[in-house]
C-alpha cells in the first residue's frame, strides 16, 4: 500500500513540476500561437540568475523573484525587437525563437561558463504523507505549481483581462475590431510567458544540475505536454498533458530504466499527436 501511495505521490509531483515548466510555453503557444523554442534557454537563464543571486547572499525566494523579472524583461526585449514582426508567420517565429535559444545559450556560456553548477536545496528534509516520503522542496514546488495553474485559470476565466484574452483566441479579427489592443496584449502575453519560464527555471534549479543546455530536454518534454494536452486549453491542457508525459514517465520507469521510460513516452506522444493533432482537450 505504501508503495502504491509513494508512486502516486511521485506521479502527482512529476506532473506538477512539468506543468510548472510548461506553463510559460502553454501561455505563449495558446494565446499568441508562437511556438517559443527560446523557452528552453529562458529556463536556463532563470536558473543561472537565481544561482548568482543566491551566491551573492540573497535569500532564495527573492532570487526566484529576481529571476522571474529578469527573464520577463529579456522576453519583452526579444518581443519588441524581433518577434512582433513575425506573428503572422508562425513557422518563422519557431525558427527565430530557436535562434534566440542559440544566442541566449551562448550568452550564458560567456557570462557563467560551461561548468556544471548546483544550488543547495533550500528546504532539506522529507515530509511523510501517510507513510510515503516526499522531499519538502518538491512538495513546495508542487504547491506553487498548483497555485500558479489556479491563478492562471482565475485570470483567464474570472477577470476582464481574461475575457479579452479569450476573445483574442476565439476570433482575433473580431476582438481587434471590438477594441482589444492586440499589440500590447501580445507583448504582455509574451513577456508573461518568459517570466513564467524564468520562474520555473529558478524553482527547478535546486533539483537538477545547472548547465547552459539544461533547457533542451525540458523543452521537448514541455512541448509534448502542451500539445498532447491540447492547444488553446491552457490550464487544463497543460495539466492533462503534464500528467500524461510526466506521470507516464514515472510509471514506465518502474519497469525499466529512466531514459528508456522517457523514450517510450516520447514515442507514445508522437503517436498521440498523429491520431489527435489538436490534443486531448483541444478543439479545432
Amino acid at each position, binding site marked *: 500500500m505504501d508503495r502504491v501511495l509513494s508512486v502516486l505521490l511521485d506521479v502527482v509531483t512529476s506532473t506538477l513540476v512539468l506543468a510548472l515548466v510548461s506553463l510559460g510555453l502553454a501561455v505563449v503557444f495558446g494565446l499568441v500561437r508562437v*511556438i517559443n523554442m527560446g523557452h528552453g534557454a529562458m529556463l536556463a537563464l532563470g536558473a543561472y540568475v537565481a544561482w548568482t543571486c543566491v551566491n551573492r547572499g540573497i535569500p532564495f525566494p527573492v532570487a526566484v523573484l529576481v529571476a522571474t523579472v529578469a527573464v520577463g524583461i529579456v522576453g519583452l526585449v526579444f518581443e519588441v525587437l524581433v518577434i512582433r514582426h513575425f506573428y503572422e508567420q508562425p513557422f518563422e517565429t519557431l525558427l*527565430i525563437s530557436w535562434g*534566440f535559444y542559440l544566442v541566449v545559450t551562448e550568452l550564458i556560456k560567456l557570462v557563467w561558463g560551461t561548468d556544471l553548477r548546483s544550488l543547495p536545496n533550500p528546504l532539506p528534509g522529507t515530509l511523510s504523507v501517510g507513510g510515503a516520503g516526499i522531499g519538502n522542496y518538491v512538495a513546495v514546488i508542487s504547491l506553487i505549481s498548483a497555485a500558479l495553474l489556479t491563478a492562471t485559470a482565475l485570470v483567464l476565466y474570472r477577470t476582464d483581462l481574461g475575457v479579452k484574452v479569450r476573445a483574442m483566441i476565439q476570433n482575433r479579427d473580431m476582438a481587434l475590431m471590438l477594441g482589444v489592443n492586440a499589440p500590447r496584449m501580445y507583448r504582455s502575453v509574451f513577456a508573461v510567458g518568459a517570466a513564467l519560464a524564468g520562474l520555473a527555471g529558478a524553482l527547478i534549479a535546486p533539483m537538477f544540475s545547472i548547465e547552459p543546455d539544461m533547457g533542451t530536454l525540458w523543452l521537448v518534454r514541455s*512541448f509534448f505536454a502542451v500539445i498532447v494536452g491540447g492547444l488553446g486549453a491552457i490550464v487544463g491542457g497543460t495539466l492533462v498533458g503534464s500528467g500524461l508525459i510526466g506521470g507516464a514517465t514515472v510509471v514506465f520507469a518502474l519497469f525499466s530504466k529512466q531514459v528508456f521510460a522517457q523514450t517510450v513516452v516520447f514515442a507514445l506522444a508522437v503517436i498521440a499527436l498523429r491520431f489527435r493533432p489538436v490534443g486531448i482537450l483541444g478543439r479545432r
Partner: protein
Amino acid sequence: MDTEVGTRPDGQEARPTRAGRLRALLSAENVIAVVLFVALFYVPYFLVGFPVYVLPQYMLFGVLALTLCLLWGFGGMVSFGQAAFFAIGAYALGVTLRDVGGPTAPWLGLLLALGLGVVLAAVIGWFLFSADVRDSYFVLVTLALSTITQVLANSESQLTGGFNGMFVERVTLPFGVVDVSLAGDLAAYYVIFAFTLLCYLLFRYIQWSAFGRVLVSIRENEDRSRALGYNTALYKTVAFAVSGGVAAVAGALYATDAGFVSPTLGGVLFSTSVVVWVAIGGRHYFIGALIGGIGISILSQTLNARIPEYWQLLLGLLFVVAVGFFRRGIVGTILELPGRMRSRRG
C-alpha cells in the same frame, strides 16, 4: 513554323535550343558548383596535413546540409532530426565493423546505414505525413527524434559505447579487383570527395526530375497539389526517406573518417546546426546548402580556436537574421542578384 523555339501544340514547354541549353548549363549556380568542386579537388595539391584530414568531414557535413535542403528548400519540411540519421549511420558502420568483421564488413556497414536511414525515415515519414502532420508539429517530432537518438546512444552503452563514444577504424572498401583503403588521409579525401560530388549530382537530378517539381509544388501549395491528384504524403515520405538514407551513409563515412562517434553527433544541437548552415547558405539552392555546410564548418574550426564564444553567438545572430530578414541566404542572394538588378533596370 519555327521548329526550334515556340510553344508546342500540346501546350508543353518549348524544347530549348542548343544555345538555350548551353546557357542553362552555364547558369551561375552551375558555375559556382564547378568552381567549388574543382577547388575541392585541387586542395590536396596545395595544402597538406590538417586541411586534408579535416575537409572530408566538412564535406560530409555539407552532404548532411544537402539532405536538409531537399526537405526544407524544396519540400517545405524543416527537420530538426537530420543529425539523428547521421548518427544512426555512424553507429551502424561502427557496430558492424566491431561485431561482424571480415573484408566485406565495410560494405555491410554502409548498406546497413543506408537501409536503416531509408527505412526509419520512410516509416516515420509515412506515419506522420499520411495524417497530415506538418510545419511546426513536424519540427517537434523530429526534435524528439534527435533527443531520443542522443539519449539512447548514451544509455545503450553495450551497443554504442555510451557516453564515452565509440572508436571506428578507417575501413578498406573492396571494389572487386582493387581494394580502396581509406587509411591514408589522401585516399579518404578523394573517396569522400567523390561521394560528395555524387550526392550533389543526385540531388540536382532530383531537383530536375518530375519528382522534384512535384515536391516544389507541394511546398508552394500542398492542398492544391493534392487536388491535382498527387499523393502528397507519398511524395513527402519518399523525399524524407531519400534524405534519411543519404544522411545515414554520410554519417557512416564520417565515422570511419573521423574515427570516433559520440552521442552528441545525434543530438539536438548538431541537428539544429544543420538547420543553421542551410539557412545561412541559402535553402533554395543545393549549392547554397553545400557551401553553407562546408563553409560554416571551416569558419567554426578556425574561429573556434580564436574567439570560440563570440563565433557561436555570431552564428546564432546570423541565423535569426537569415530566417527573419534574409531568406535567400548568402549563396541564394548572390545567385539571384543579376536577375534582381535586371528587373530593377527594366
